[in-house]
């Protein structure tokens, strides 16, 4: 942050996930991995795929 600038910080709970997590637990499941896929990675892989398709044509 630059001196003099202001920032807001937001921390949130993904409330939607709680019922699903409960359902998963009741079904015998356990969370073993979670994470975020960067949007840039998605865009890049789409482009790569399209380029691949183009080469194929």
């Amino acid at each position, binding site marked *: 942050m630059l001196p003099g600038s202001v920032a807001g910080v937001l921390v949130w709970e993904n409330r939607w996930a709680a019922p699903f997590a409960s*359902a998963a637990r009741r079904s015998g499941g356990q969370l073993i991995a979670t994470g975020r896929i960067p949007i840039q990675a998605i865009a890049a892989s789409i482009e790569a795929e399209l380029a691949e398709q183009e080469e194929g044509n």
Partner: protein
Amino acid sequence: MTFGRPAEPRRRRLIEIMPIVGWKSLLAQADPPATRLVLDTRVQSDLDLTTLDMHSTLLRLLRSRDIEVGLADVRSGVVDAMRDHGLLEQLPETRIFWTSHMPSQPSLREVAQAPESSRSHPIGGIRPVSSHRTLGESLLGSATDGQESCTAAEVGGQMTEGMDVAVDDLGPVDYLVVEFPVGAANFTGEMAEELARLSAAGTIRILDLLVLHKNDDGSVEAIEIDDLEGVDAIRVFETQVA
């Protein structure tokens, strides 16, 4: 079982559906449901292969939903490219409206001033046209007093940048992996129901759903669930794993 580098099938799947997700999402929001769609190709003098592939995918999607498609403000290079790519078989010539410099055809301005059925719509890009009018009538219909309409130009934007739109429309994309240890699995369909509820409520949009199976030799099989965007797809999931 660990989540390492995504398996190739998963990557391909995500890639295949990304533009479609954007289009399906727009179609799902259309109220009343879209019966016809006009693509403005004004900004294009030609179509490259990538764009043609995207058009082809979109045309298939629309045809599968019985949505009629027309092209507005078309240049000859666009039609030539589409013809060479076999797309015109899906799009009759009577649904192609040439650029405004060809006197007998509607200009984009006329298209934009189409009658009440095309009034400003909450979603950009999909312009519902009431079913008792032909596309041509809609395009050529008398202008009403300066109504703002969701113009075909916006549709053009969706088309030419369909991929970008889909990506731009995405919220943060997260993944999770839930393991069901041998003997612990007790599938009741409850998880699928919860996912269906969240998906139907618009809380989440399911982009991909895989069932992984790790064999005794350590190899991992990935089973794709087809077409995951929607409740029906979740039911497929439920049926397969329950």
